[in-house]
């Protein structure tokens, strides 16, 4: 099957029910997307499929066939995406493991809702667990990235 990942079309000989997470990690060597629970509970594996955030551990390859997948590696090569910039300004990561998923969820939120309210942030990010407890800074970074998006649109 064919899946376009980070702008590059990939021809893959894989079982249709293989979760996208393992397609990315074990077949395409894109290890920035993380395994955390395998049950869609923690958000560490969040990627975008056709512009929407999905839990790649719960997304069979067949559901991504013919689709456009964006992973953390495709967001920018130099951490210049406004969300990545805000993440760095607030020194969000601790161990860093869940941060790919956090960032991909935050990007999806801000694409839909450029200036989210606190409640919208809470709701959109509730699916991404961070065991280190970086949540306070996740909120700050999203607010900053949202504010900047608001300014650039004005």
């Amino acid at each position, binding site marked *: 099957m064919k899946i376009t990942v980070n702008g590059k079309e990939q021809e893959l000989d894989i*079982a249709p029910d*293989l*979760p996208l997470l*393992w397609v990315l*990690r*074990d*077949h395409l*060597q*894109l*290890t*920035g*997307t*993380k*395994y*955390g*629970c*395998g*049950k869609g*509970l*923690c958000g*560490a594996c969040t990627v975008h499929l056709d512009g929407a955030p999905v839990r790649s551990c719960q997304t069979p390859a067949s559901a991504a066939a013919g689709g456009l997948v964006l992973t*953390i*590696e495709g*967001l*920018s*090569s*130099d*951490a210049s995406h406004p969300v*990545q910039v805000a*993440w*760095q300004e607030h*020194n969000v*990561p*601790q*161990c*860093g*493991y*869940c*941060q*790919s998923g956090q*960032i991909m969820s935050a990007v999806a939120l801000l694409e839909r809702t450029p200036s989210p309210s*606190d409640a919208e*942030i*809470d*709701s959109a*990010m*509730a*699916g*991404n*667990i*961070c*065991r*280190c*407890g*970086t*949540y*306070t*800074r*996740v*909120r700050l970074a999203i607010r900053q990235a949202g504010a900047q998006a608001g300014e650039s649109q004005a």
Partner: protein
Amino acid sequence: MSMIRKISRRRFLELTGLSASGMVLMGSLPGSALAGVLDMQQGAMLNLFVSVKADGLVEIIAHRSEMGTGIRTSLPQVVADEMEADWSRVKVIQGLANADYGSQNTDGSRSVRDFYHIMRQMGAAARVSLEQAAANRWAANIGDVAASNHQIIHRDGRRLDFGELAAEAARLPMPDMATLRLKSPADFRYIGKDIPIVDLQDMCTGNTTYGIDVRIPGMLFASIERTPVLQGKVRSFDRAAALKMPGVVDVIKIEGKPLPSGFNPLEGVAVLATDSYSAMQARAKLNINWERGVHATHNSGAYLDELAARVSAGPGKVARERGDTEAALGKARKIVEATYVTPYLAHAPMEPPVATAHIHDGICEIWACTQTPQATQKTVAATLGMEDKSVKVHVTLLGGGFGRKSKPDFSVEAALLARDTGRPVQVTWTREDDIRHDYFHSCSAQYYKGGLDDNDKLIAWLAREATPPISSTFKAGANMQDDGSLSMSFGSIPFAVANLRVESHEADAHVRIGWLRSVFNIPYVFGIGSFMDELAHAAGKDPRDFWLETIGPDRELDFADEGFEFSNYGRSLADFPYDTGRLKGVITQLTDTLPWGRTLPAGQGWGLCAARSFLSYVAVATRVEVKDGRLRVMEMHCMMDAGTVVNPDRVHAQMEGAMIFGLSLALMGEIDFKEGEAVQSNFHDYPVARLNQVPHVVKTHIVSSDALASGVGEPGVPPVAPSIANAIFAATGQRIREFPFNKYFSI
């Protein structure tokens, strides 16, 4: 006379306290002794931690594991400061397992407190080597040259970049550590500053290598079905069915060992496949028939009831005694009694345990998200019958650790499977494996009885506990806390009470017990901090005032006269006294930032708790609201006195994280055992805090101090749960004597 003299290895060890040979210059050691380091560093080595390339790039070894504390930045930051390196021209190199570095066991909140001074010495030694090389080049007196921002500058204005001097500096003997001049704190360039972590950008782009990201050509991916009950044995399994599954290459039984568990792998059956998912899926076909063994009788609910009854019923073994507690309780005007219980917990780091092993050319290479590369090296070497030096342990980034990754059992699994298959093997624990087969944080029961006199002052403190000990993991049958474990708050209560007695009861272990972030301070500070609040209310006093009054006068505590061997986290009381003034200091400074004591709307309350752990002093205050049976934590505030602080931003981050870690266990943390098996298995039934559960007000404060640096990673955790329980009481009048609180409230 030159201030540089060659020092003997022995002298160096005396000076630094390190069991190190490698601090001595490379030239004085056989090359093989440093082979493991040399293959990672490309520059000229000035000492074991510092090398400089010809282009001036300074390479600094991080010998501790990065699991989120920022230690890969903080200790190199200290080295760079002392050597006057330009941080933008520093590259941090992760050290392999190597005893020359001293301990690499990254737990116990020890990295900065144990290595701050040594890292300053390493930086200063590198600086002096470069200064001496410049002085030699210029035929000048070393007193006329000085390092500044990556250059050595002569007082006449001549200057040379570090890179131009590296080769010559590396040939000089090691500077005399005894006369080494360290910088004045006023001249610090990086220490005490918010240096962003070196992995920051990579963590934001996915360009990182955790244990689970290691890829070796030809490697197999393994997933292991392990015994559901401690000491269970495989009776039979369906090897053929698993082998038929797509991608599966091999099926291998791993033999468990008798107790103690130590760092041995659990008994199980491994499926090896060409990718992770195939290996995980094929486990379902193994159809293992288990001999469940004696621990299959373990039911945690009934067991905790049994421990609670034991501590309430009668005296145990006395660990500490002052005055005559029974007599004082007999005379007391008011008696307060309470029994607290706390559950088993699992670590649940976001990255589960993962290790990769490759045996080739007579050596075994391990890549692992390990907190303890040296124990990994030793355990793998012993298992394979190799010498330690033949096991090369690469430390990846750790996706969280919290103590779980201090146990190298998962690396041993990978090594055994690599041996048996002759191929590189990566063992990935699933989340279910991680939660069901953890080295669990222990459950605990505690009983307290306090007496108040006519002035409502505390005159007697009786405390009894029963907690399956960590020592059971290393000594079969151990079932009693020793003074070292009781030194985590239970035995070391700092109260100025004339009569006290601290007792322990037996508690058999039925699961693998391990250490989790702040260890026994979690149950004990929950008991102590809650009981202090109960006493305060019985005394009719504001809890803050009661804490301050009961801690009593400023003084340094000494427990020796009371029969208690206080471990003080492995450090001397001379260097790190137990200073009651600092404990009161965090309470007063924290509550001064709050509207403490003012009336709140109905259903709301403030709760307070303070503790000293890992040599640091922490107070936490929490505001909650309880409405229609729903508990909401509204604000969390934390004040920490950790002495000298290297990277304040990372200390704040640890405090923020510790409060959320504490929130998780207080609201939701519980592992139950039914017939010896862990009931919970993933984040649906072992929930941890999510962003929407975290209060919008989380404030952290660091006490400004030039005392010796003390622990940071763990001490924020213990006061959180009792502060919430105390806030619930203030809000509702309901006293909660166990966590998690979701047994009582919706959250």
